[in-house]
């Protein structure tokens, strides 16, 4: 008769016209996927509202924890579904308040009569429920402007929902609703954050990493896999392409001006990324570039480097200060991994004085000294594909 559920608010999705249905289904699929290890959970849509229902009250907190990492949710509220009956509503509202006293000192009742056949009108119901609550908790006060607790009551036909304050969600669009992209994942602080922000706009994420063993260690690769794993909290499943980059780096080091090595390297990376993206039907590349942060991220550098591809390059952190990026990275849990001190492909052959305003013609001339086609082909062919799921699988089964 009574059922525990969570009522979801989807905000921005409501604006999306005819696509709304697709978005909603994607969102529901994502939530189901998140909760697939919990039993007795169902995600359903009735009367324009999406609900997560569950039998076991103990599941409330774990479900909330999961929902806090689902993009596309503006908020959600633990609710109780009861038959539409005034006495039942009184009792349920009282229970809601009981759980929240003593933190709550003021409240108001906000009833919504979606089903107009219900005999009591909203205003009247507000008064009636409010009176009932005051009777049982004389210490409480009604505050219609800034109450600690809003007791929401929604009359929807046979069933009504009673719920309290909203728990904020992380917003954004459901992952998988905006197409596929390929993230250049280095292992630093910025690129995981860029990946997170891309996911927030609903993309399906794949990642590419350039690995220069033995100049960069297995630890550096593990670090990138760990970062991708952390992103799966938001992105369900991430396919990561690990590109063997040793020969390209040594060739650049051998033949090109030291000051242009980064520019040439980035140009080659973009070419390889474009090839991989195309093979995966990804529609854009994503990088963690922030304007002016390092030599390769000046506008001049971006022009020279960007010239090799026509693919859109999304740079979600382009306008952010390092400080802001670090804050997000701490929040999403990638920071501690990102700062592990392993060499990556960008630091290992770091020139003493990289060009901050590289010239396109010089870059092209430098590149011409390399057997580009062969190097790129070999790198693409040698790429290792690793699938990272959001399962909490463990390497050791000792505990």
């Amino acid at each position: 008769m009574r059922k525990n559920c969570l009522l979801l608010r989807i905000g921005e999705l409501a604006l999306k016209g005819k696509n709304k249905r697709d978005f909603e289904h994607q969102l529901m699929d994502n939530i189901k996927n998140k909760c697939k290890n919990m039993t007795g959970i169902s995600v359903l849509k009735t009367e324009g509202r999406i609900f997560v229902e569950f039998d076991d009250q103990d599941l409330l907190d774990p479900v909330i924890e999961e929902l806090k990492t689902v993009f596309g949710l503006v908020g959600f509220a633990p609710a109780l579904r009861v038959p539409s009956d005034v006495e039942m509503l009184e009792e349920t509202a009282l229970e809601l308040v009981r759980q929240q006293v003593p933190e709550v000192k003021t409240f108001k009742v906000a009833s919504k009569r979606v089903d107009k056949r219900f005999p009591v009108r909203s205003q009247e119901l507000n008064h009636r429920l409010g009176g009932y609550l005051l009777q049982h908790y004389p210490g409480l006060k009604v505050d219609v402007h800034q109450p600690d607790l809003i007791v929401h009551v929604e009359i929807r036909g046979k069933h009504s929902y009673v719920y309290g304050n909203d728990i904020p969600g992380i917003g954004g669009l459901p992952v998988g609703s905006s197409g596929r992209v390929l993230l250049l994942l280095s292992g630093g602080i910025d690129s995981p954050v860029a990946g997170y922000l891309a996911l927030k706009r609903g993309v399906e994420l794949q990642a590419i990493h350039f690995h220069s063993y033995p100049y960069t260690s297995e630890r550096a690769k593990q670090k990138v896999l760990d970062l991708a794993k952390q992103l799966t909290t938001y992105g369900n499943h991430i396919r990561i392409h690990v590109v063997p980059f040793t020969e390209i780096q040594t060739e650049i080091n051998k033949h090109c001006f030291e000051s242009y090595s980064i520019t040439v390297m980035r140009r080659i990376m973009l070419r390889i990324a474009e090839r991989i993206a195309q093979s995966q039907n990804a529609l854009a590349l994503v990088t963690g570039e922030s304007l002016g942060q390092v030599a390769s991220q000046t506008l001049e550098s971006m022009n020279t480097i960007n010239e090799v591809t026509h693919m859109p390059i999304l740079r979600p952190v382009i306008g952010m200060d390092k400080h802001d990026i670090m804050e997000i990275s701490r929040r999403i849990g990638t920071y501690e991994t990102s700062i592990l001190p392993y060499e990556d492909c960008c630091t290992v052959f770091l020139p003493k004085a990289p060009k901050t305003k590289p010239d396109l013609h010089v870059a092209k001339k430098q590149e011409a000294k390399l057997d580009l086609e062969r190097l790129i082909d070999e790198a693409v062919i040698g790429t290792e594909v690793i699938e990272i799921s959001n399962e909490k699988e463990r390497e050791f089964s000792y505990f």
Partner: protein
Amino acid sequence: MIYLDNSATTRAHDGVIDVVQDVMRNVIGNPSSLHGLGGQAERLVTQAREVIARFVGCDTQEVLFTSGGTEANNLAIKGIAKAYQNRGNHIITSSIEHPSVFEVCKQLENEGWKVSYLPVDQTGRVRAQDVEKEITKDTVLVSIMHVNNEVGSIQPIHEIGQLLKRYHKIFFHVDAVQSFSKIPLSVTECGVDLMSVSGHKFHGPNGIGFLYKRRGVMLDPLLTGGGQEFGFRSGTHDVASIAGLARAIVQAEKERKAFLMRSRTWKEMLIDRFRQDLSHFTLNGSLSACSAPYILSISFPGLKAEVLVHALAKRDCYVSSKSACSSKLEMPSRILKAMKKTDQEALGSIRISMGFDTTEQDISMFAETLIDVVPQLQHVMKVYTK
């Protein structure tokens, strides 16, 4: 054999032994080495740390592995004292702490620190309001144990933690060696900044433990060197023991609830039997919810605890007099004295402590043995018998 000295140490669980053995055989790298074998060992340490952090309810960076409870207590107290000496020079602790807290405080007193040792009531409990009374503007640290090792009294950690939340500059350390994995303690709810844990008290390996250190709390390390454990505790990781520790925690979580229920019944059963068939004894601590059900301390005034321990050992029953570390000195227990017990009571007290592997048969056979042994000794020692 009837082993009822589990507060001294426990028999390692078979699963723990298997894990330790397997790791020693197969995971040979040093977690600090860069190569693949080092990486594998590091991942194992990380995974163990995650398991432990989940049970504590904290982040992985808040778990610092140590060689056990004594080191964790030393690191917590000396670490805070050194790192925050500019804040003041006063520590509040209780008069019934384990020596690894008590003696550390004594040592700091020699270095110019002031220490308040809080009294306890007859059941061996500190009062939270006494903590507040002792707070001065120089107070840097409050260190109170969760469960007392000699009498099993549970300290009002939650209450103390709540009141300390009003004093932002005072750190709160809890020695949870006797309670961890048995009696839950939420470090966040209780406002605990530091918590000491030792593996061998809950069927884990010896020589391994950890200090929970809330993020943001600074410690001056006791051991410096390679910078392991986020710089707070250098020294090559004991990978096998760390894995064993995590395994023991997982095991304990499975057994904890049933164990607490069993031991509560047994503790009551023992007291009932003794009341029926023995005279001249007193219960130290209480039978209430403020006492750990798996620790029972009783005094036989007029008998020497040492003699009783030996007499029981002759019958293959193993219990403790005082805490294991200090059992060899014949001094009335500091803890029992703090509980206002007489010298006679304090000298004649034994501790019976149960583990996850204690059986009902152990308990009933122990009761029979004690009921047999005590009157004989009381007769010899001319303690009035009925």
